[in-house]
Structure formats: structure tokens, C-alpha cells
């Protein structure tokens, strides 16, 4: 189990979006601007991404 990988978020509407990973991702975590990553006690990551325009957010687990 590496826990390494990617979450990509896409949206055209401004606002805050959240996503809870299905797996238990590895650290460290790298992400694009406007993203917050917190960790649930079970080891899953919770991502919150702020969109102000039609854009995308990238979260890479196991990358620095």
C-alpha cells in the first residue's frame, strides 16, 4: 500500500467544495493554491477547495 496518488477537482462555479478520500493517502501532501487538507482519525484526507472562477485544484499525496 503506497497511499500515493492524486485528487483532481474541477468546477465552473465559485464556492467551496469538499471531498473526503476513499482511501488513506500518504504524506507529505502537495496541493495547488486555495486548497486545505485535513486528516480524519481514520487516516482519510478531507480536502476543501476554494474556487473563485472556472478552474481546477490538484492534490498530490506522497509528493513534495
Amino acid at each position: 500500500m503506497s497511499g500515493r496518488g492524486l485528487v483532481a477537482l474541477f468546477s465552473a462555479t465559485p464556492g467551496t467544495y469538499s471531498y473526503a478520500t476513499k482511501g488513506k493517502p500518504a504524506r507529505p501532501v502537495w496541493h495547488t493554491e486555495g486548497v486545505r487538507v485535513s486528516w480524519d482519525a481514520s487516516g482519510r484526507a478531507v480536502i476543501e477547495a476554494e474556487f473563485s472562477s472556472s478552474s481546477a485544484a490538484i492534490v498530490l499525496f506522497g509528493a513534495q
Partner: protein
Amino acid sequence: MTEEQAWRSPERSGMQVVCYGGDQRFWAIEYTGGNAAGWTFGSPSFELEGRMVSGALATLAETAPRRTLTCGVTEYRVGGPLRDAPGTELHWIVRVADGGNPVVRFRYELASRDGARLTKRTGSDRLRYLSASLDGCDLTVERRLSEFVEPVHSYCPTERQADELHFRRGETLMGPLLTAGGGNRQLLLAYEHGSQYPDAFIQYRLRPDRTVELEAVKGNYLDGSAPTPERPYRTVWMQAAAIEGDEDALASHYRRFALRHWSENAESRRPYIFYNTWNYQERVRNEQGGKYLDPMRLKRTLLDIDAAHELGVEVYVLDTGWYGRTGDWRADPQRFPDDLREVRTRLDGYGMKLGLWFNPTVAALGSEMLAAHRDCVMSEEGREAEPAEVWETEASVPLCLASRYADAFAGELIRLARDYGVRYFKWDAIAQYGCDAPGHDHGDAGHTRLERRESYAFQQVQAMARIVDRLCAACPQAIVDFDVTEGGRAMGLAFLGSGKYFLVNNGPYYFNYDVPIDRERDNWNLFFHPGPARGWICRRPLAYDRWLPSTLFLAHYLPDAPRDNQLISLASLMLGHNGLWGDLPALSRADREFIRETLDRYKQVRDDIADSDPVREGGDRRGGGSAREAVRDERTRSRRAFLRNARNL
């Protein structure tokens, strides 16, 4: 035949394949240790000298030494004389993963020692590849790969559930994948061929007793052909799996098989970052009033390579126009006077690979290839095609891939791999139909024109795969990419056993959306500009990723400012399509650094992403966002989810 006479493979993770050689039970996937997932397959059957003959064997034995393949697989060959036609032999060639992947790949070979011929007494193919029971399965799904979906102007995966009525009515399904599940058991069948839905060459037939048969439709063999031990009749490859688990587990195993255990041409599976010149060539034509081939110059190419290197590109592809004339495939002496020497030196210095564009089905009127292969020119209804310019270069005529020309083309590619160091070969413009000539290897004057036409269309993708395999045997670093950006291609599983696909060019054209344009002067491409729209189109076929890794489907994204477009492009690329194209030297230094730094981070985890099972979330909620996850874990190996705003669609 008795249990004792059966042949058994070594056990791998509790699974083995067994050949019984009977009608109803020709071979089986069997498990030990209380796993209830086994599955039994009925024999193939062939029309020989006007009558249907079962492939059941009189006796059986392992008939060749075991072969270990570089993709972690062992090949076994088991066969013997037919019970009902002792002058004819049938061999079952089966490949099983050594490390426990449950997907089994197999085909048959038929050979007669007494001159028995394959026939078509009814005028059409009569060949049954297998039969199997789906009893106990309450969900049967046809999984198509080759429906051309015009709103995105691309092949996309589609599926259809088969219910009781379909079985009762004896309906047919094209597939090429068929899955069935019930209780804690999942089954999968697949065949390796290709054509656009619904133009089936092979199909599944459902029976009221809940069996399924895989059968030939057209072109699978030539009427009156006599398979011999020297030139046996080889069926297409087929695939089967039976597991305990749910459908996600089955998809995960199949995806893993496609990535690691299907093809020995391992480079085709690697998530390199690809760049291709075509988008810039289109910009020159559509936005600067120039010609497509204007950028095909040494100076521009070196500038482009420098910029590509700064971005982190690993495979640099010169699209159409690098060559002097088709067929001979040498650098154009005016455009690249040093025969690509400096291009190679520059790429080598950066540790980058060179890719080149080819149309494997044409040769220029003045080419040595055509002079040596006049007999291989394609014709239909007795008329050879009119010579036509190929992208602003010398007029060319089409050559037939089911003729001796195929070997000569493979030789050209091997020469290019050796002399130019080419590592990526883009094959474009290969329409599946186009030749009904007698005198090639797809029928002679004794066959009807229709049979020759269908035989060519059937054999084409197999000929393509053989060329790729010859090239990769000579140059294991080679990657061959089959452009399926337009319809009418041999789309399916066959090519993926050897190479990968170039999936989306620019998606739909204006006229696909009924927007009137001047086709001579205007830009046809609707999704050609930086911004979110291109991503909506290009990401749609990511739905393949559940069964077939997206690294097998190349599509290119635009690196242009603003930053939002760059984020969308990079996020999309990382989901597996892995291509970038555009005017790279025009990017600002800050943009190049941003892309480089982002791709550097992606490269740290890209193999894990390629290994990940996709998870997607969102996409239909009005005004909502969407997210995609891809984290590799043990249970499902990894995941990917994506949220997509409903408004985007």
C-alpha cells in the same frame, strides 16, 4: 476424456487452468481452497468441408515448451487431433499471470494434415469461438469500447445490461467485453479485435438456457482456406476471468492486467509526458494564415524542443510534415537539411525521446516503397484510388496492410528506430475498410469482392499489431500509437495488446454542432482554444479508465495562460492522458516554471496514479462542484474521483 487425462497448469494464487478437451467442457478456470468462482468453457467449432465440426479432442497433450513472457506471464500450449476429424489438430494457447492476476488470455490454432478446408457453405462465417454458462448471474453487461459519440467526437465506453428478454430472444451483443455477476462471483469474457460499433466482426450470442456463445460474424476466415501445420488458422486472442468479489474488484483486476500482464511492449504503458507539434501547426494555419507545414523547420523545432524540455516534456513528437515523401519516411532535406541530426543531439542532451508521425497506408508516387510494391496498391471494385496529396506533400496512393507491404513498412520503422533513434511512432489516418483487391493476402479471384473486402477489414488490425510487435522485438523501447480521433477505425482491444491509442484531437468540429462554416477557409475546431471547454470534451473518455488505464489513451491539453486554464489542463493531464501541445516558446518564463514545477511533483507519484482504480464523484449536481480521487491503496489499489460541474456539460 477422463479427469485423469486432463491437462492442468501449475497453480497460481490458488487458481489454475485445466484443459479437458470435451464439447461442453473444453477448458476451465478452477480454484482451490473453497473459492467458488470457477468457470467452464465449451469447445470452439469450425465449418470444415461443409459441416460443423466440434473442437473436442481425441487425445490431448502439452505440445510445446512453456514460454515465459516479460509481462509476468507463462504461455502454455495444449492440443491434439480432433475427435470428429482426426486429420485435423486443434491447439489451445493460453497465457496465465505468474503473480496471480486472474485474467487469462487464450486463442486457438487449427491445422489439417489431410487438406481439410475451412468453408462457408451458407455463404457466411460459421465459427464458434466458445460457449459458457451464465447461470447464477443476475447482472450481465455488454461493455462496448467503440461507440463513436458525436457530441464529444470521440470513441467512448458505453454499456448495456442484458436481461431475461435478451436471453429469451437470443440477442447478440458486440462487446468486446461481457461481464456477468451473481452472488459473490464475477465473470468476464473479451475478444481482441476492433471495429466501430455496431459494425461487428465477432459477437456474443445469448441463448434462452443462459449460455453465451462467442461467434464469428464476417471476415474471420477465407472460404476454402486450408490451414496446415506450417500455416495454421490462428483465432483472435480472447480473455476470460472468474473471481470471487464484486464488480469493482473485477474491474480492478482487469485494469491491472491491461497495465502489467497483457502486452510485452511495456513502454506503451508508461505515463510519460508527451508533446506533439500538431496544435501549433493548426495555429499557424488557422490563426496566422500560414500553412500546416510552415513550422516544420529545424530552427523552430530546436526552439520548440528547448521549451518542451523546460516544461518537463519527455517525448517530443514531430507530427505530419517532417518527411520528404510518404513511403520512404526520410527527413525532408529542405526542412531538416541535417537529416534531424541536431534535433536528435538536442533531445539526447535533454534525455528526451523523439517521436514521428506516419501514415502506414500510403506511399508517394515517387517513392522507392511504391516502386517495390506496385502489386500492394489498394483497390476497390477493380479501381485503384486516385493519388492524393498528403498534408501538403507529394501525391500518394494507398497501400494494403494485408499484403507483403506490411513487412516492408515494419522494416522502415525498425530502420528509423535504429538510424534516427525514434522511440514513438504515431500512426494516423488508418481507415478500416478500403481494399477488395485479389492477389493480396485477403482473398483471391475465387472469392467474392465482398469477402475480400471484409477479410481486409478483419485482418487490418492484426497486421498492425504484428508490425508493432516486430518493431518492439527489434527495439523494446518503441511505443506505437494508433490515432482513433476520427470514426471508422479498428477500435477495440486488438491494438491494445501491442500499442496504445491517440484518442482525442480537438473533439467536435463546428459542423458537428450544425454551425455553418466555410470549410475551405475557416478553422473547423470548436474546442481549440484555452479555457474550460476543451477539458469538458477531452475528459469525457476518461470513463475508459475503470477497465482500461487512461495511460493507453493519449490526449493533449493546452498550456496557455491564464493560470486557470493551466490548472485545468494539468489536472486533466494527470488523470492519465498525459499530453501537452500548443505554442510552447510563446509561454512566459513564469508559466514555464509553474508547469515544470507542477509536473515535477506529478512525476513523483505518476506510477501510483497509473496503477490506481478511478473513483469519480459529482458531475450531475446542478451548480455543484466535482472531485476525483486517485490514491493507491491495497484494497482497490488506488482511486481517483472527479467532480464536474453540471454546468460544464
